[in-house]
């Protein structure tokens, strides 16, 4: 019985193919609507997927999965110094975060400095001089283009080494390789061990390549040593000046008069611990960001002994808002394009219905004949339905090929990122079959309801 059914189905299928072959041109033109619709869906999905992947990658490289732990604000006499003015983040905090927060992939401290960089007779003021650890590169997803990164050993020994961003390398060396050269950073000589890969501007247009990174101990202890001696962080630039002077004239010339013991007793200097300006945290993934924020908040409150009801003495910033906005834009665009493609599919389906109706009218005599030789209404219904579905399936197949082809073309010619979307192909096949059944049903039903007598006499 199964064999008979199989033969029967294969024969129905062959009859359908035969009927379509009898009118090649019309069949081809009929399917064109479906071909275009499916091709549009496939190309749309592939290009859309590719773009959204690319955007996600870009966001990730801009730091979508990065959290920034900043110290809180200090206020003195009712005057707040603004966010980040407290100096209560320590390297130990950083180590605790990576040790105890499972949602965190990597951490890196940031110690900032600002000042002039000199090589030979060229000078430049980088937008960003950061002291950090080698894991900074991991956190920021940043490669070293030339040379080597500095090591943890350099961090422990405050080694006089640094990595340059592309902009500084270009400004200072003008095409020469900086690797192995000595430069002066705020008059401290450091050796360039590597050049970072280009990163471009960030979201607000700041040049991210205008950066110099060195071991944070080096920046802290050698380059901006004075900032640890001075109590007021907001006066950092002036302390740098002082530091520069003291480096220029190492004869212990103090700009300020020494404190008398009475003055020292009146204003006791707190015992200073080594602080870092920021802690960069990379979450395991962008979805883990909320978990990471929770874990870090809890840990930091414990470590800083903040009681319930007290406000945090630190801030955690993330880029979730930006990520969300961009992702939803991409989704919206893809959906919009999909809607357009679906509309064209519906139009294609209506085209198929029209042509099938014409075909039913045109083949009335054939239908009458088939009925006269024993075809039942449902045989005719099935035949026309199968024809419509075969037409749509063929259209779908060509559509998939053309869609894939055009997305490949877009990739090779326009260099847009595209991505093979299996879901789109499955959906396209399903949609083309559905279109075939839905829009083929009415003409097929009409054909099956013909009266054989009238059909045979139809002129």
């Amino acid at each position: 019985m199964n064999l008979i059914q199989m033969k029967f189905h294969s024969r129905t299928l062959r009859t359908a193919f035969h009927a379509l072959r009898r009118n090649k041109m019309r069949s081809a033109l009929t399917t064109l609507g479906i071909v275009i619709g499916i091709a549009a869906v496939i190309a749309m999905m592939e290009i859309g997927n590719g773009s959204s992947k690319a955007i996600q990658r870009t966001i990730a490289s801009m730091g979508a999965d990065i959290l920034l732990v900043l110290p809180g604000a200090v206020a003195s006499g009712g005057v707040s110094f603004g966010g980040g003015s407290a100096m209560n983040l320590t390297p130990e905090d950083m180590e605790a975060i990576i040790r105890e927060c499972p949602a965190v992939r990597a951490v890196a401290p940031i110690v900032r400095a600002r000042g002039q960089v000199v090589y030979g007779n060229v000078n430049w003021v980088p937008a960003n001089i950061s002291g950090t650890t080698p894991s900074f590169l991991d956190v920021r997803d940043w490669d070293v283009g030339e040379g080597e990164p500095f090591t943890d050993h350099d961090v422990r020994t405050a080694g006089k080494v640094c990595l340059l961003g592309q902009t500084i390398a270009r400004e200072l060396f003008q095409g020469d390789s900086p690797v192995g050269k000595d430069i002066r950073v705020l008059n401290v000589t450091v050796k360039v061990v590597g050049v970072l890969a280009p990163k471009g501007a960030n979201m607000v247009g700041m040049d991210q390549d205008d950066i110099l990174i060195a071991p944070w101990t080096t920046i802290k202890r050698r380059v901006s040593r004075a900032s640890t001696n001075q109590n007021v962080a907001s006066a950092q630039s002036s302390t740098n000046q002082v530091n520069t002077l003291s480096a220029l004239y190492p004869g212990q010339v103090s700009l300020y008069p020494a404190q008398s013991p009475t003055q020292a007793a009146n204003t006791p200097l707190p015992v200073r611990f080594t602080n870092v300006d920021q802690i960069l945290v990379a979450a395991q993934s962008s979805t883990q960001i909320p978990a990471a924020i929770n874990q870090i908040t809890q840990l930091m409150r414990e470590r800083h002994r903040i009681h319930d009801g007290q406000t945090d003495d630190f801030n955690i910033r993330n880029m979730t808002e930006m990520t969300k906005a961009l992702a939803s834009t991409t989704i919206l665009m893809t959906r919009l394009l999909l809607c357009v493609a679906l509309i064209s599919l519906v139009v294609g389906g209506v085209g198929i219905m029209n042509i099938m109706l014409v075909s039913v009218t045109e083949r009335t005599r054939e239908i009458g004949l088939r009925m006269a030789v024993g075809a039942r209404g449902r045989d005719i219904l099935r035949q026309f339905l199968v024809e419509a579905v075969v037409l749509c399936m063929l259209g779908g197949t060509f559509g998939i090929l053309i869609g894939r082809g055009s997305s490949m073309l877009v990739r090779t010619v326009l260099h847009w990122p595209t991505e093979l979307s299996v879901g789109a192909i499955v959906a396209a096949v399903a949609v083309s079959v559905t279109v075939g059944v839905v829009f083929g049903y009415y003409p097929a039903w009409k054909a099956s309801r013909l009266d054989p007598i009238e059909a045979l006499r139809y002129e």
Partner: protein
Amino acid sequence: MELIKLQDIYKTYHLGEVDVPVLKGVSLSVAQGEMVALMGASGSGKTTLMNILGCLDHPTSGRYWLDGQEISGLSTDQRAFVRSSKIGFVFQSFNLLSRTSALENVIMPLSYTQQGISDREAREKGSDLLRLVGLGDRLDHEPSQLSGGQQQRVAIARALVNHPPLLFADEPTGNLDSRTSEEILQIFQKLNVEEGLTIILVTHDSGVAHHARRSIHIHDGMIQTGAFAANDSSQKSKEVLP
């Protein structure tokens, strides 16, 4: 043995408010192996009678036995089955599928009846039948490449593919010239004599009817002559004919 038996068949068409009686109590019988001509002017009810005999339509009242089976009460699908298994049709305008080879045309009805048959068997069967009607060398020709007579022969082969006991020919020579008509009618006669096929020729041409052994004349919805075969049917039908 009677292949066809009609008893008091009435057929009335309802055109809006008006009832149009077309067949007014037709009774007739056709024995197995007979070759009968069904004659009548247009409007006489000939076509309606043929539709009922061919199981394409059902009578308003009356009873119809075909091959011992009561037909008048069957559903549409059941009638389709009877058509496929018991009746072969040959039409005036051939009704071949265009752009389809002669062989494909012949085996087309098999897709609705003998679903288990293999392709090879079907093709063998089709080519045998085409050889029988003298078209063994034109299996792959399409209707447009065949003459009218050849097309009608393909149609005859198609009508025979299910081995029906009854062959219906509706004005089979209406579109053919006289010489070709003669050939086609000879094929019918040959099938009648050699294969024992019961053939009903529907025609208004007495020359065509002449080839049958009996003529049934219908006029104004009623049978005039030839409703039942006499013992010496061939003799009698010839006397009736002018």
